[in-house]
């Protein structure tokens, strides 16, 4: 219940931050993606049902306040679903969580930016393959990876999972 509440607050705040703070944090043609951060951490630290619910709420909120068609927003963040299953599988081995989360954020971020570029191009934007890579995707990778690593560090230090159970075997 607490997880669901925190997820709703995170999604609402990330959607608002996306139209108020994000435009000031840019590299070339890429902007930081707070929604990605929120959805990745919800997928990592809550259960499947909460994550899918958060994904739907994010779609409605982001679609409404950015005027992006709802179906495209949902498609952009849809790869989070396999991530939820992957995190569940890896939950027993904490060592791989950071790598999984950063890799997932990069892939989902890339997918989202490619999708948004396709929408823009289908809407009449003349852009070359090189422009998309150099001005949108490459800086986008940086803007997706760095905040995820920083936030993951903060979560590990301040979050509920800061203590790890280590199997040391029986002392006989």
């Amino acid at each position, binding site marked *: 219940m607490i997880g669901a509440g925190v997820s709703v607050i995170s999604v*609402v705040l990330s*959607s*608002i*931050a996306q*139209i*108020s*703070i*994000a*435009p*000031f*944090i*840019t590299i*070339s*043609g*890429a*902007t930081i993606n707070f929604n990605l951060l929120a959805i990745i951490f919800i997928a990592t630290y809550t259960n499947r049902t909460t994550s*899918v619910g958060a994904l*739907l709420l994010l*779609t*409605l*909120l982001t*679609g*409404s*306040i*950015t*005027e*992006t*068609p*709802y*179906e495209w927003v*949902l*498609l952009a963040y*849809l790869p989070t*679903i396999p991530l939820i*299953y992957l995190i569940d599988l890896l939950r027993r081995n904490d060592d791989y969580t950071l790598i999984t989360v950063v890799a997932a954020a990069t892939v989902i971020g890339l997918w989202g*930016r490619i999708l*948004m*570029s396709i929408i*823009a*191009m289908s*809407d*009449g*934007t003349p*852009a070359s393959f090189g*422009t*998309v890579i150099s*001005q*949108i995707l490459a800086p*986008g990778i940086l803007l997706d990876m760095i905040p995820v690593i920083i936030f993951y560090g903060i979560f590990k230090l301040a979050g509920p999972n800061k203590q790890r159970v280590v199997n040391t075997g029986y002392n006989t």
Partner: protein
Amino acid sequence: MPKLPRIAIMVTSLLLVIVLFSALGRTGNLEPVQNLFLIGSSPLSSGLSKGFKPLMGFFKDIGQADNLRKENTYLKQENEQLRNKNIELEITKKRIIELEQALKIRTTDLNTAFLAATVIGFIQLPFRAEISINLGSVDGIQTGNIVLSPQGSLVGRITSVTKNYSFVRLVTDSRSRIASQVLNSTTSGIISGKPTRELEFDLVIGNIKTGDILITSGLGGIFPADIPVGVIEKIAGTDQTAFPQITVTAFAQITNLRTVLVDTSFIAILPESR
């Protein structure tokens, strides 16, 4: 009957949700939800933006203090000159209107109606640069109205309107195309946005030089004529280059916008309405 795996059910459900969202979004059935979210988010969005901007500005400007001081002095001098010029132009404009009335001709539009709107959000997605404002169809805003900065420079045009809110495609959006000309010259071209939110002056016919002021030409009917857009900052290429790369600096300080003016008397002739 074999039991379907949970993941298959979930993926099918999500695909159905995508179709549902698509259908509801296109028929406008989600507009009340959109209005609700916009109403709820706008105060927080404005507050966050207001608080965060000076912080980012501080980090950005910290290494350029000397340049900023010089620029400030130059801008103060320029501001004084422009104020004096503005007074002269106001007097001239008044005189022109008087003469037009005496001659019973009308070229100066006296019916221009501006509505002041507050910027509630900046939308920056790949190739997209838009803002949302707190005026909608109930205030008389229509798709195709043009949006200016409080100082009168071109900001963009209304592309979508809900009951209480509207979305503005900025001049820096990659899809934006503005038929323009150099002030006091016949040189014309198209100002277009770049993915990096800068402006470029393309397909130029005529001579140009750095510092030339660009205004809308009114061709195409999407923007009215004679609205200041920007100034030519850099021309890359030699005299032999057929189409040199011309970088334009917009007059409107887009990321500093708090208030904009919507010209409700002008409605663009959009391709879809032709």
